[in-house]
Each structure stands twice: as C-alpha cells, then as structure tokens.
C-alpha cells in the first residue's frame, strides 16, 4: 500500500503491548510465583536503572565486541573463500558435504572441542562464534556466485569482455544480494554463539555471563533485564544490516 493511515503505523506496537499485558496478567492472576517472574513494570524500571548507572555497559560492550570480532573474522575468511568456491563448481562440490555437515551441527556442540584447542579464553569464544558464522557467510557467498543469472553472464561474454571482468563486473555483483543475506544471518549466529559461550565457558564479562550469574543467585529482575537487552541487541544488529543492505544492494529482490 502506498498510503498508510496514521493508525497503521502503530500496528507493529501491538505485539509487544500484548506480550507485556500477558506478562502482567500472569503475575496478577498468580499463575507464576513472583519470585520466578518479576512484574514487567519493575523489570523495565530495573532495565532503565542498569543503563543509567552504567552497570550493564561493560557486559554489553564485551558481548558486542566479541560478536563483531567473530563476525569480522567470518566475513574476512568466508566471503573470499565462498566466492572462490562458488566460481568453481567442482571445487564447491568437493567440499559441499563438509560445509553442510558443520553448518547443520549446532556450533554449541563444538564448544568442548574448541575448549580443548583454545582453552578457556576470550579467543575461544571468538573462535567458535566466527567458525559458526563463517560457514553461513561462505555458503551464501558461494551460492550467490553459483546462482548468478546465466543471461547476464552471457550478455557480458557476448560483449567480448575478459574473463576477469565477467567475474568482477557480473558474478561478483550478482553474488552480493545473497552474500548480504548471509551476513545478516551470520551476525545473528555470531551473537547466539557468543552468548552461549559466555554462559558456559568460564567468563568474567558479557551478557551471557550476566544472565547465568543472575540466574544462579535468583536475581530474576536482573536476569530478565539482561535477556531483554540481549534480544534488543540481536534485533538492532539485524535491523542495521537490513538498512545497509537496502542502501548498498538497491536492486535486491527487484531484479
């Protein structure tokens, strides 16, 4: 629809409002013990105060830092490797099983293996998160190249353009839309693994560490606050990539 009624802009707010109402209802109707679930109002006030006091910031920062480091590594390795494999179908077919196998294996299952290799360090968390994210980036970049429109490649070949320019001007550009789909999923995956790693690989900082710590001492208000912040972080990362994608890959979904 081209023209939106003013009330239609408010539609996306209904979901969260319903959720908060349900949350409050569960407490008001005594369905859940308040010791397990704090009221939404109090939780939101606590959320505000943790930000106002800055108490959550070091943890938030560590998680963001680890996620972006993992993601950056994943892109640095995954995009060039994916494009290389994608432009040589035989090469891709020969490693396809390995990629699909590890892509289907929950990365958290590999945490013990990575602990053996990297020990209980920050490097370990970044290594495992970037491994999981890298597979997604690689897979999508490769498919972006492999699924390039044949007609476009032929159009360039007919013009007598060199193989290198067919690759650079057509295949690479064609793969970008799919690559960005991969980047978006990969940043979400990196965050998931970082949070899990912060929970279960001895950690002093991070939102995952904060959640598990709060749970251990039954500080449910702080636990829910950290969960909400983690969710918001994931949402914002995804939204950020969506906006960049719309700007850079303006033809995505249109051609």
């Amino acid at each position, binding site marked *: 629809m081209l023209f939106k009624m003013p009330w239609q802009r408010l539609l996306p707010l209904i979901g969260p409002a319903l959720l908060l109402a349900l949350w409050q209802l569960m407490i008001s109707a005594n369905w859940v013990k308040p010791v397990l679930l704090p009221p939404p109002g109090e939780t939101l006030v606590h959320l505000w105060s943790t930000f106002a006091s800055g108490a959550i910031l070091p943890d938030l920062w560590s998680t963001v830092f680890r996620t972006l480091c993992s993601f950056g590594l994943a892109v640095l390795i995954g995009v060039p490797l994916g494009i290389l494999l994608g432009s040589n179908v035989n090469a891709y077919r020969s490693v396809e099983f390995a990629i699909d196998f590890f892509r289907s294996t929950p990365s958290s299952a590999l945490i013990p293996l990575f602990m053996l290799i990297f020990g209980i360090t920050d490097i370990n968390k970044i290594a495992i998160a970037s491994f999981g994210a890298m597979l997604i980036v690689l897979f999508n970049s490769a498919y972006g190249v492999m699924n390039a429109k044949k007609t476009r490649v032929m159009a360039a070949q007919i013009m*007598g*353009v060199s193989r290198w320019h067919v690759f650079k001007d057509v295949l690479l550009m064609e793969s970008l839309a799919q690559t960005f789909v991969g980047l978006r999923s990969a940043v979400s995956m990196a965050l998931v693994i970082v949070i899990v790693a912060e929970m279960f690989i001895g950690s002093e900082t991070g939102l995952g560490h904060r959640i598990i710590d709060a749970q251990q001492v039954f500080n449910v208000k702080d636990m829910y606050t950290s969960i909400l912040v983690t969710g918001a972080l994931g949402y914002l990362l995804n939204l950020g990539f969506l906006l960049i994608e719309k700007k850079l890959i*303006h*033809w995505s979904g249109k051609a």
Partner: protein
Amino acid sequence: MSTLPTSATTWPTPGDTVVSLPPAPATHVTVRGLSKGFGGVPLYTRFNLDLPRGRIVSIFGPNGCGKSTLMNMIAGLIEPDEGEILFDGKSLRETTIGYVFQNYRDALFPWLSSWDNIAYPLRRQGMKPDAVKARVDELARLFEIRFDLQRYPYDLSGGQMQTVCIMRALAPRPEVLFMDEPFSALDFEMTLFIRAKLQEAHLATGVTMVIVSHDLEDAVFLADQILLLTRRPTRIAEIVPFDLPRPRTPEAVADPEFVRVKSRTLEVFRREMST
C-alpha cells in the same frame, strides 16, 4: 534401417568448408558443415548457411527445430560439435557482435543505471569518457528516449528495458546484431515502437540483423529474408525473400506483398509441420 551416429561428435562424412563451398556474393556470415547433437541425437548435420550483409534475416520454424540453437551457435553462446562460422572471413573473436535477449530483465545489470548499462561495453573496450558520452547521447537521440536514463533498469517498464537492451547491444557498433524473440515479452504498443526503432537503427547503421521469432507476423515484418527451418534433423526448408521497401509502417501488415509473403511462409511452415 539407417543407423544414427552413436556420438554427436563423429560424423560419417566430412561437411563442407568455405573452400569446398564458397559463400555467395555479398555474404556477411558464412556457416559451413555445422553439426550439433544433443544426447547423441543430431539436431544439425553438416548445415550450410549464408547470411547476407546489411540485411535482416528472420529464423522461423517448428518447435524444437533449434532456431535459437542455430543463432546461439553463430553468436558463440553454444559450442557446435563441428563446422566453421566466419564473419567476413574473420572468426567470432575478431568480430564485434550484439545480442538482444528475450528476457530483458535478466540481461541488464541491475546494479548499474540504464545509462551505465549502455555505456558498459564501451567502457570495457577502453573508450574515453567523452566518446562514451557522445555515443550514448547519439543512441538516446536515435531511439528518442523520453525517460530518464539515470534510472535503474528495474524502475523501467518492459518496453523501456528492452529499448535499453537494444541500445546497449548497438553501442559498440556491432557488425551483426542477434535478437532472440525480442518482442515476445512486450505488449503490442511497445512491439510497434521497437519495430520502428529497429528499422531506423538498421537504416542508420546498416548492421546485419538476425532475429529468431516464434510469431509469424514478427518474423515477416522486419525481414528481408525469412529463413524457414524443417523439423529435426534440421535443414533449410526454404528462404522466402520479402522486398517491401523500408521503413515499413504498422499498416504494412495489410499490404498485399506482406500478406503474400506471410501466407507463403505459413504454407511452408505447415508443410514442414505435417512431414
């Protein structure tokens, strides 16, 4: 019982060459001894063809006779099993050609503006920016472009996109322009427009054109010659000449000569269908 060759790449007797069968006068593209099979079933066997210089030839024939395959082999998009194809005695590598695809949406580069799409082959040839601009402007005048060429292809209508495709194909001044069903995805109004513009471009440049069409009227309308193919294994059924002077207006479809050529073409086509 005759036996078909077991492999598509080996044929019992050698085909013609330009030496054994020289091209007719005023030939631009010479096809000699062309053979192509798919999955062991021969489609073309020692096929010979002369395409006249500066003329428009339409390829027409029954479904599956390999109209597009023939054109794509000449344009270098499909590798023939055997045979030679020469452009004025030169190989394809030494020849500038243009190609207009049926699916214009998939043929244009959506990350480039329409203008940059047209300029792309020129830039890749190493043409100076001034010269590129002059050439694109020249084409924009020839095609009387009234929409903004700075827009991206996906923002254009189908007819506008196909116009950009044709401009891009013509930009490097090709010797031969190949068109694969260029009208099949266009509405009637755009078909009339593109027909008119192609005639003007042909008049202005004298480019040799090859059009594959599955629509009889489209096949006849622009053509100097209608190349009619048989069912597979494909041979030339007949070459029907059509000499109505150009420019041919939309009313030309009611011209007695057009009607005669069209019905002659249809006659051959039906004869080939029934064999």
